[in-house]
């Protein structure tokens, strides 16, 4: 890992990049504030504790909450972190500040358009709404502005990735035989995964949803748009997670007082996510008719393989943190935990986020299992799960990481460490209340995406406790989470307004215990890994998509015929794949 910025602060060395990071963080944090407020309204509304909106507006709030937090907050923060990481680890500024501002501007414009369309749902006379939820596939239809805004946002992320690849290319000219610095390696592999996976949603939005919302085509094939969404909808989970992983692998060990345990293991993990993230999306569609059970089984199997990089991460990060604790004098099997720097909100927040991610991983395995998924499908269990993953592993890591990163790009000291510590612990406790109750409510059969989950002549039952207790826990948890966000924004705002400091934070990142020297150079062959990822996607999706198009009323639904050439192409692919499989099976047998 390069340790370039050890001598001077990031903001002094790379002022243009620091400005880009600050702009990205600003939009991320504004979105976090609005999205968290919407979350509080939802939590109080559906638990019937306090209802300040009409139930019909619940879906406007829900869409705003999902889009602003799961897309805008996370990805803008990711862009800020990645821009910082590439400049820092390559020890060079971006090739063109103007180009960097172009992608920030495009993403911001897209965000504004999509947000205006969503908020338009509160004003019926406006004739503009986008109550399509974060999962914006057909048959729900939004105003064209919503889809156009999202398309601009996605293209903006593509340009951001191009910015980082250009930096890497320029660095490579003068460092022909060197290994890719670890942070840049993480950024590039994540962006390759993002390019591969966003193709699905780009096709869905540009070729189907925008023309459909504009009235240029009469209908779409709903299952096709759903499948294209989930083609992107699962890898986006890893797009959220990878900046958190980058911080866990490269910053958390330093905060703990130690070093990363193994650079090669970190590279293997990011490559496995590049390969395995995309060919799994169908596991979100276990209950969709129109997709053969065999394809769902393959998606489930691929999903279980994803446990490998997650478990490798658990081992590597915990080993690194334990090393740090022992460097600080920690001893014993577990007593070393007491030697960790729990006063530091950046460390404590990331450590708590990692601990909750373990719980989220376990509930994720339930989601991924084809048979047991039927028990919790579309219940409150699912939001309970992703509030542990994106809502805590990612969001809490991003907030905790901000306590270390924001001072680096503003040149000011953190306003208050005690408030920061209280904030991350409040998030942990709030999420324990809310997410645990959501999981339990899901097991009781309470549905998700419902404004009023109370039915006449029917009562949900829990094996232990009562539904009332669960509702109180969800409301209490949601309130604590909102207060935690308020504390965070308050702390960050006052930090950015503070006086400049010569050394606002110790930004030095030490070398890993086991560096990249001994690992195979093939790990850095990005072109080869991209090719393998593409082949896996083709194998996983060609036949399901062909079946969906042929059996689901064609490309545009509504019974419109598939053009003969396209149909013949599908037949050719199906025959070739079947023939190849039979040949392979014959060899194996």
């Amino acid at each position, binding site marked *: 890992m390069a340790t370039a910025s050890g001598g001077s602060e990031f903001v002094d060395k790379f002022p243009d990049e620091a400005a880009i990071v600050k702009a990205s963080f600003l939009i991320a944090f504004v979105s976090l504030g609005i999205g968290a407020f919407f979350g509080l309204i939802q939590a109080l509304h559906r638990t019937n504790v306090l209802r300040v909106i009409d139930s019909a507006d619940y879906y406007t709030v829900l869409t705003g909450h999902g889009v602003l937090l799961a897309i805008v907050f996370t990805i803008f923060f990711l862009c800020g972190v990645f821009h910082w990481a590439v400049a820092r680890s390559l020890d060079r500024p971006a090739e063109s500040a103007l180009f960097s501002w172009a992608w920030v501007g495009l993403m911001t414009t897209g965000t504004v358009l999509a947000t205006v369309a969503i908020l338009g749902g509160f004003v019926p006379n406006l004739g503009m709404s986008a109550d399509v939820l974060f999962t914006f596939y057909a048959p729900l239809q939004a105003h064209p502005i919503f889809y156009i805004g999202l398309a601009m946002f996605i293209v903006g992320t593509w340009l951001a990735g191009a910015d980082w690849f250009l930096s890497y290319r320029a660095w490579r000219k003068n460092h022909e035989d060197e290994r890719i610095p670890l942070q840049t390696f993480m950024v590039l592999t994540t962006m390759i995964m993002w390019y591969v996976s966003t193709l699905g949603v780009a096709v869905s939005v540009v070729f189907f949803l925008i023309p459909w919302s504009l009235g240029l085509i009469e209908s779409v094939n709903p299952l096709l748009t759903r499948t294209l969404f989930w083609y992107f909808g699962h890898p986006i989970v890893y797009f959220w997670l990878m900046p958190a992983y980058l911080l866990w692998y490269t910053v958390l060990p330093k905060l703990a007082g130690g070093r990363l345990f193994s650079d090669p293991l970190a590279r293997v993990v990011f490559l496995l996510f590049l390969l395995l993230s995309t060919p799994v999306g169908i596991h979100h569609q276990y209950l969709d008719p129109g997709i053969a059970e065999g394809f769902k089984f393959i998606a489930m199997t691929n999903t279980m393989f994803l446990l490998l990089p997650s478990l490798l991460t658990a081992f590597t990060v915990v080993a690194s943190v334990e090393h740090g604790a022992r460097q600080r004098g920690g001893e014993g099997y577990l*007593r070393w935990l*007491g030697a960790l720097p*729990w*006063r530091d909100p950046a460390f*404590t927040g990331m450590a*708590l986020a990692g601990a909750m991610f373990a719980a989220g991983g376990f509930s994720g395995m339930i989601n991924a299992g084809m048979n047991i998924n039927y028990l919790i499908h579309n219940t409150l269990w699912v939001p309970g799960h992703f509030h542990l993953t994106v809502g805590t592993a990612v969001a809490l890591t991003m907030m905790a990481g901000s306590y270390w990163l924001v001072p680096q790009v503003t040149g000011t000291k953190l306003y208050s460490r005690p408030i920061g*510590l*209280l904030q991350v*612990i409040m998030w*942990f*406790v709030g999420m*324990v*209340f809310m997410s*645990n109750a959501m999981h339990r409510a899901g097991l009781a059969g309470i549905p998700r995406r419902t404004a009023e989950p109370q039915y006449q002549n029917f009562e949900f039952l829990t*094996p*232990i*406790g009562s539904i009332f*207790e669960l509702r109180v*826990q969800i409301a209490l948890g949601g309130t604590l989470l909102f207060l935690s966000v308020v504390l965070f924004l308050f702390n960050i705002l006052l930090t950015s307004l503070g006086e400049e400091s010569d050394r606002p934070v110790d930004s030095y990142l030490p070398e890993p215990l086991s560096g990249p020297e001994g690992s195979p150079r093939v790990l850095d062959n990005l072109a080869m890994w991209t090719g393998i990822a593409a082949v896996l996607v083709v194998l996983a999706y060609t036949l399901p998509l062909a079946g969906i198009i042929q059996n689901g009323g064609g490309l545009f639904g509504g019974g419109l015929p598939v053009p003969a050439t396209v149909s013949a192409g599908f037949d050719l692919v199906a025959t070739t794949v079947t023939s190849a499989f039979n040949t392979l099976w014959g060899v194996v047998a």
Partner: protein
Amino acid sequence: MKLTKARALILIAFSVPVAIELRTVAGFFNVELPLIAVAVIEFLFLALLFVLYGLYGEGSESAA
């Protein structure tokens, strides 16, 4: 090991999931714990932590 404010906060934080799922764990052994029992146990834990912090926490004579 000194019981700092930060360590005490962490212990309180981790006591919450334990308290919430205490009835589930008790259920595995066919023990039905009422909600009030869980509240009392959590309160006793917090009181114990408070006492320990007073005895061995930052600024206490024992810690010094």
